[in-house]
């Protein structure tokens, strides 16, 4: 099948939009040591610790007015 | 200009059509003569527009070939086919003037400026827009815009065919008649092949030399207005053409007689044995209401001005008859059918009388 030029344009544009978002998600799933010590395209040791921290830290929960 | 041949043509909008019902156009083989004025007539959704777009190259058929003269154009782009098409709703280039709109198809083909100017004056005179040539197209009424579209369709002299897709839908009734007459005289003058899509039988019958009736993705009949009236090839043609349409009765046919419930009707010709659902058809114009013949129950009489339409029931099946001015409904109404005007249908297709060969 012939690839349409518009498909190429849209792929490039969407990659441009999504890669920075991916990078943020990627960072959120890494440990602090991993972020500072190594450079990798995906989390080597996947962790949800950052989310646990943010959802339990009292100084953070008030900001989201959970209570 | 050239003859248009549709060979083994069919089209489905689905990539993998499974059944017959998936086809917007069912297999057909037709030849459209060079210089003919054709009307494509049919109800909405019968495939008229699909067929038109296949001829103009906007849609590529899923099977079969399209030939212009001897040239196979099935895979040719619209621009290569050298065709003009006018659409149902006005298509004008808003930011251009009327003149620029009319010049656009010629300019794109690199015609000489002097020729363009002359040609535009001719077309403007024809559509009656000389006074508006330098106005922007945007502010005009739908009528005027559609006239520009028509003008743009006719501005090229060397086209293979001009296709009209219900072009007069948005035009005023009196203007409709005038423009149709214009188109007709234009056809006589230049002899372009013209294909005119419409669902209005009056429009079709007045415009065309040959009317192509479509039903459910099929061309059910291609013939002169007279042929469509006298010998509809399909019950749909009988029903769709004429006002009211042809009367159709379920019947049993044997030889030159039909049995219709409890009564016998003479057919005027002998028929061989039929298979499937058998019907006989007669135009309301050929039904005579008098005190002789088969008894009917009259339900009501509608006065439509020139004549009256009698709505009646014959052996439990509905029947329409035309009553000329001055005639009255008899106290004991009976009907007779004009000899030779009765057609026989098997599974909706017309059966030829046995003398002329058998089957449709």
């Amino acid at each position, binding site marked *: 099948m012939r690839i349409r*030029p*518009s498909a190429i*344009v*849209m792929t490039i*544009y*969407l990659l*441009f*939009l*999504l*890669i*920075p*978002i991916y*990078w*943020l998600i990627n*960072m959120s799933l890494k440990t602090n040591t991993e*972020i*500072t010590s190594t*450079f990798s*395209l995906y989390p080597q040791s996947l962790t949800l610790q950052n989310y646990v921290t943010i959802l339990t830290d009292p100084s953070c929960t008030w900001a989201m007015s959970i209570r | 200009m050239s003859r248009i041949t549709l060979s083994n043509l069919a089209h489905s909008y689905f990539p993998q059509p499974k059944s017959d019902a998936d086809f917007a156009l069912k297999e057909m083989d037709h030849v459209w003569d060079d210089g003919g004025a054709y009307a494509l007539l049919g109800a909405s959704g019968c495939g008229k527009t699909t067929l038109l*777009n296949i001829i*103009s190259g*906007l849609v590529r058929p899923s099977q079969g070939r399209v030939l212009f003269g001897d040239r196979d154009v099935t895979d040719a*782009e*619209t*621009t290569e086919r050298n*065709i*003009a*098409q006018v*659409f*149902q*709703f006005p*298509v004008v*280039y*808003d*930011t*251009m003037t009327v003149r620029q709109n009319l010049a*656009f*198809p010629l300019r*794109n*083909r690199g015609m000489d400026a002097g020729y363009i100017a002359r040609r535009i004056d001719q077309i403007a005179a024809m559509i009656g827009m000389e006074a508006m040539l330098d106005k*922007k197209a*945007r*502010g005009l009424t739908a009528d005027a815009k559609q006239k520009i*579209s028509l003008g*743009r369709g006719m501005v090229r002299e060397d086209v293979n065919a001009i296709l009209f897709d219900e072009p007069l839908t948005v035009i005023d009734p009196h203007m409709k008649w005038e423009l149709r007459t214009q188109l007709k005289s234009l056809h006589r003058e230049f002899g372009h092949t013209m294909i005119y899509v419409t669902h209005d039988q009056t429009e079709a019958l007045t415009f065309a030399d040959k009317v192509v009736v479509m039903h459910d993705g099929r061309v059910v009949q291609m013939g002169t207005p007279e042929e469509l009236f006298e010998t509809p090839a399909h019950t749909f043609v009988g029903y769709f053409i004429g006002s009211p349409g042809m009367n159709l009765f379920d019947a049993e046919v044997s030889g030159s007689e039909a049995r219709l419930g409890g009564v016998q009707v003479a057919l005027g010709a002998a028929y061989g044995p039929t298979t499937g659902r058998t019907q006989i058809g007669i135009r309301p114009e050929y039904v005579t209401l008098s005190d002789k013949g088969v008894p009917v129950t009259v339900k009501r009489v509608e006065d439509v001005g020139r004549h009256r339409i009698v709505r009646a029931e014959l052996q439990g099946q509905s029947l329409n008859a035309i009553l000329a001015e001055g005639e009255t409904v008899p106290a004991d109404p009976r009907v007779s059918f004009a000899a030779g005007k009765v057609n026989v249908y098997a599974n909706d297709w017309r059966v030829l009388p046995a003398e002329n060969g058998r089957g449709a």
Partner: protein
Amino acid sequence: MDKTQNNKAWFLVLPVLLLVAFSAVLPLMTVVNYAFNDTFGNNEFFWAGLEWFEDMVTSDRLHDALGRQILFSAIILAIQVPLGIFIALNMPKKGFWASLVLILMALPLLIPFNVVGTIWQIFGRVDIGLLGHSLAAMGIDYNYTNDPLDAWITVVVMDVWHWTSLVALLCYAGLQSIPQAYYQAAKIDQATRWSVFRYIELPKMKGVLLIAVLLRFMDSFMIYTEPFVVTGGGPGNSTTFLSIDLAKMATGQFDLGPAAAFSLMYFCVILLISWVFYTVMTNLDREENR
């Protein structure tokens, strides 16, 4: 025909007027108050007249910020409007892919401004960001915290990332309103791709483009959060745009009088330029209708 005048209808507008008075006019008057007075606290005010305005009009610092701001908005419009149109022309028209592309394109528009700043702040860093790291790996010397040009590029690319989809989506809506018959007629008239764009697509997009240009101008002219998060206005003052400068003045140095005068002029400039855009574009429209 004469219409009967009935001035009682004005009372119906009263609730809206009151609401606007409380939510917009009163705060604005506070700013106006600061702009024409000097204060040393204690709610004591001394009439300063046009002094603050004179200060501001002649201030080099303001001139520089204004220059940067105009340059920024011009770059943003010059990139986002053509790019938005181009993207809209390439978007799939219908089906599954159209829906998917729409959703993905809307993503940046849904992200809070400071998060956008954070995303690019991280993304551009040479040590942990994909962009910075990749550029460094390719041997390109890129560092938005040291190099003013790199900082500018980062801020511009970030804004393009954030807002081009808005322009594209607006244009896409305009394109979707074009009936298929126009494209078919253009084919039959043997129009070139450029003619189709020039005579069919562009006229249909003109209304939404006016809105897009206005929105993008106003937003980019008032930009604050994203560059503040990424560069903090630096290096030096190279990415200190008007509102960043204003915030520095008002909350950093507590120069309330000059900041208020500055705000008022800022407001007037935006109003003026928007008005110019609007008038020019609607006049073009009227010209063409004639």
